[in-house]
Structures are given as C-alpha cells and as structure tokens.
C-alpha cells in the first residue's frame, strides 16, 4: 500500500480520485502523450539513445568504413591515455578555459557595474557589447584571421604604434606559441556581451537601499562592493562561471576555420574536441573517438562538481 502510494506520487497519479476523475485522468494522459510524442521521439533518438550508444561504441573498435566493430573492453581508453596528442589537447583546452573564463568574468563585471547607473546611451552600449555573441562563428573567424594577418593585418599595424614600448609585430597565425592566444581573444570578444547582460540582470535585482544604507553608515565604495555587491552577486557569478567553463571545453570552430581545418600550425593547437573530430572523421575510428568523447564528458562533469563543491560556502542564496 505504501509502495503503491509512493509510486502513484512519483507518477503524478491523482489521490483519492472518483471514477469520473480517473476517466478524465486517463483521457488527459493520452492527450498529453499525443502532444509530447514528436518531442519525445526527437529527444529519445538524438539525445538519450546516443548517450548510451556512445558508451557502448567506446568499448568497440567501430570503424566508419566497415560500419561495424568488435567489443574490445577498455582498450580505447587505455590507448587514449597513452597518446601524447590527446594530452596536448587536454593541456590546450585547459589553457583556453583558464584564458577565457576569468578574463571574461572580470571584464564583464566591470562593464556591468558601469552600465548599472543612470547614464545616457545605456541600451546602446549594452547592444554594442552584445552583437558579437549572435554572429556566425565561421564569418567572424575569417575576419579575425584577416586582423591577425602577419603582413597586412590590423593587429600588427596597431602594434607598430607601440614600437617604443618594445612591442614587435608577431606571426600570429604561423607561430604556434600564439595559437591559443588568438582563439582566446576571439572567445572573449564574442562572449563578453552575453556575460555583461547576465551580470546586469543580477545587479538590477539587488536592493539598492542596502547599499545606500551602508554608504550612509560611512562605508566607502570599495567596502560596499566587497561586503554587499559581490556576495549578493555570487549566485550570478557562479552560474556564469559554470556555463562558461562547460562551453569553453567545446572549443573547436574558430580553430578549425582560422587554421584551415588543422589544429593550429604544426598541430600545436590541438584541443579535445579537435582530437575527437580528427579521430572520428579523418581516421574514421568512431569507437575510439567515442571513448575520447566520454573522457571529455567526465572531465566536464568532474570540473562542474568541483566548482559546486568549491562554491558551497562561497555562494550565498539569501
């Protein structure tokens, strides 16, 4: 009986219902499933089934041309762990995450605080910062490739003005030491406005009275920020950091476009997703690539869990 009640609750069954409500409940249930059928089919086929399928594939040597694979246990995982190219991908992905997320968060917070005042052209500024976010990655990567051009690029020209500070023109796209830098800059440029808008929304929900009261009590602006704004903003900062880190793990398109389908000059800009792409679509080792994808999945999961753990005392939900 207890089990029945629990099960009923879990399945959203009506409690103490009459025969009439039961009849309506079953009629509603069939209608609801009719409404949900198309969405369920797509989600099932392209989101749920492939999660299982990817794991099963990762235990085989599935090859795209043979369209078949034998069960080989964890051999793919073992081999990936021993591939220096994979570790280069991990290292570069880590550099990318660390290079983009903190800078974006700090710059965006600064801009959001400036915009959170009654100033003119507020909406125009917000729009200007946001536009890069909606643009096509391929198109803007082409534009940036042109800006980075070693001979006629805008960046090297601009560096010429600061010659006296010791800045020299660089081979941005040809020298492997700049590869991650070039795509980090694009990522910050493209993602800044999105982060600004979310921070701004967070700032606007805050109670201004609290800050004004502190100011009346003699707190200076720095104290107001660190003692009130920053702690109150922590759920927003946390949300932004979590999603930004997850997104940064997926770095691929800008690299692929700017470096002509290669992972940077001399393959020095390898990232995890690029590694998966090459294994699956150049080498056609789809079982192997699935194993690499699962490793990516677990890395993202581990980093996310770590962030939740780290944040447990530092994020304040009133």
């Amino acid at each position, binding site marked *: 009986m207890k089990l029945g009640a629990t099960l009923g609750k*879990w*399945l*959203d069954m009506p409690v103490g219902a009459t025969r009439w409500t039961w009849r309506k409940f079953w009629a509603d*249930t069939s209608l*609801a499933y009719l409404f949900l059928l198309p969405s369920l089919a797509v989600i099932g086929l392209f989101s749920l089934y492939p*999660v299982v399928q990817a794991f099963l594939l990762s235990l085989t040597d599935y090859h795209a041309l043979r369209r078949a694979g034998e069960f080989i246990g964890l051999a793919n995982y073992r081999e990936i762990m021993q591939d220096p190219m994979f570790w280069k991908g991990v290292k570069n992905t880590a550099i990318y995450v660390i290079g983009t997320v903190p800078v974006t968060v700090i710059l965006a917070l600064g801009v959001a605080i400036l915009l959170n005042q009654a100033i003119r052209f507020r909406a125009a500024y917000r729009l200007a910062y946001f536009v890069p976010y909606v643009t096509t990655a391929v198109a803007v990567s082409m*534009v940036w490739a042109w800006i980075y051009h070693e001979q006629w690029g805008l960046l090297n020209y601009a560096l010429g003005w600061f010659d006296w500070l010791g800045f020299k023109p660089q081979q941005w796209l040809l020298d492997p030491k700049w590869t991650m830098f070039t795509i980090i800059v694009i990522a910050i440029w493209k993602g800044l406005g999105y982060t600004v808008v979310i921070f*701004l929304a967070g700032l606007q929900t805050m109670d201004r009275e609290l800050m004004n009261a502190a100011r009346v009590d003699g707190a200076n602006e720095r104290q107001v920020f660190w003692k009130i704004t920053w702690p109150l903003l922590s759920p927003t900062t946390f949300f932004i950091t979590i999603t930004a880190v997850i997104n940064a793990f997926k770095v691929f398109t800008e690299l692929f476009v700017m470096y002509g389908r290669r992972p940077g000059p001399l393959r020095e800009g390898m990232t995890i997703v690029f590694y998966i792409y090459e294994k699956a679509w150049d080498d056609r080792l789809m079982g192997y690539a*699935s194993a690499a994808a699962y490793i990516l999945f677990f890395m993202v999961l581990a980093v996310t869990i770590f962030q939740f753990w780290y944040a447990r005392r530092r994020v304040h939900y009133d």
Partner: protein
Amino acid sequence: MQQSSVASSPWRKRFKLAGTHIVLLVGAVVMFLPFFWMVATSLKTYQETLAFPPKWIPSVPQWRNYVEAVKTQEHFVRYFYNSFFVTIATMVTEVIMTIFASYAFARIKFLGRGLLFALFLSTMMIPGEVLLVPNFITIVRLHWYNTYWALIIPFTVSVFAVFLLRQHFLQIPFELQEAAYLDGAGHTRFLFQVMIPLSRPPIATIALLKFISSWNAFLWPLLVTDSAKLRTVPIGLMSLMQDEGLKYHYWMAAATMALVPVLVVFLAAQKQFLESVAKSGLKG
C-alpha cells in the same frame, strides 16, 4: 542614482561620469572594430587591401566585390537558399513542437509528468560533442546522410525553449482554463484560443533563438553533408577561404553577406532577445 554619502562636488561627479563614458566607449569601439574592418575591406580594391599603413576607408567603394564574391563560388546562391530553408523549417517545426510539449507539461495532469520533465531537463547536462558520433551513425542508418532531414530534425527540440514556454504557460491563471472547460472547450481549443494568443512574446523569443543558432550552425552540417547542393552558408564560407591566393576583399564581402540575415533578425527583436538572456541567468 549613484550617490555617495560624502557630498562630492559636482565637478568630481562630472569627471566620474566622463570617465565612465570614455571606458564604455573604448570598449564598444573595440567590439565594433572587427565589423567595421570587415565591411571596409569588403569595399576595397585588391591593391587597397594590401596597403600599409592600412586604409580605413576605401577611396571608391567597390560594390562589385559582392558580385565577384558570389561568382567565385559556383554554389554561393544555393548555400543561401539552403541556409534559409533549413533555418526556417527548423524554426517553424521547433515552435510547433515546443508549444504542444510545453502545454502538456504546464497544463495537463498526466501519468509520469514529473519524471518525464526531469528526463527532458537531464539532457541539458550532456555535452553535444558526446552525441556527434552516435548521431552521425544514426543519420547514416536512416539514409538521411546528405538530406535536409539530417540538418533539420535533430534541432527541432530545444529543452531550454520548452522550459521557457512552460514557465510562461504556468503563469496564465488556471481559472481561465476552468471557465473554458465549463464552456465545453477542451485542452486543444483552450491552447489555440487562449494560451497561444496570450504567449506571443515568449514564442517569438523561442523562434528568434532558433533562427540565430540554426543560421550559425557549423559542425553538424559539415559532418552530415558532403554535397554542395545541401551545404549551408557557414560551410560555403569556409570552403571559400581555401581558394588560391589572397582575396580578402571578396572573403570579407562574403562574410558580410553571411552576417546580414542574423544581424537583421537580432536587431529587429533585440529587446526580447536580451530579456530572455537576462532571465536565463537568474535561474542560476
């Protein structure tokens, strides 16, 4: 709005305000510069693109670069047609499916509702990259490789969109539904005559989000098509760059054309778009 307890002189205030505007303006210029440079280059002659120091404004705008850019690629017009077709088909299908799914989750009490919704939300945790290989195999097995189906169907459900619209449906008073029910209107009629007319803004937002993500999609369309007849604008752009020689004036013209639809749609509805982004952050 910003007031300091210590009475600061009006001069100091003005100074601070000017500083704020200067910082924001410099930032905005940096954000805007790549677009300016793209359009400026697209209107230059070949010689002007190689000028050093660079020319900011071309002396005579070369509008025919745009014609040439279209001509350099045999299928350029086709790419645009494909992108528009795929984007609009995905958007319309998604909106219809989202309306029905959100209504079921928000307004119908049915067997397994909570569990099913949790299952929906759980898919948001999966990085899309994990799904690439098995989904590619599924597409090949369905004989959808090199078809519009492969470009459209996998993107017709967005869990975030279902979440957004369900949230809105929940806010519409339940009394309305009871009144309609007593008048003999069932769920379907109530959905079409009351819910949808009351939900135009969130539906528009969902459509807009899908338009932008669909137009910009790159990796998946690259993987599931290899015929020029089916390729979309981003992939066409990419292959443009592999041509011999430096043709940045043509490439920038092509990039500008690729960005125009998405920018027009975004600017037309930017207010709603920014609101939905702001909302997504407050959930956190």
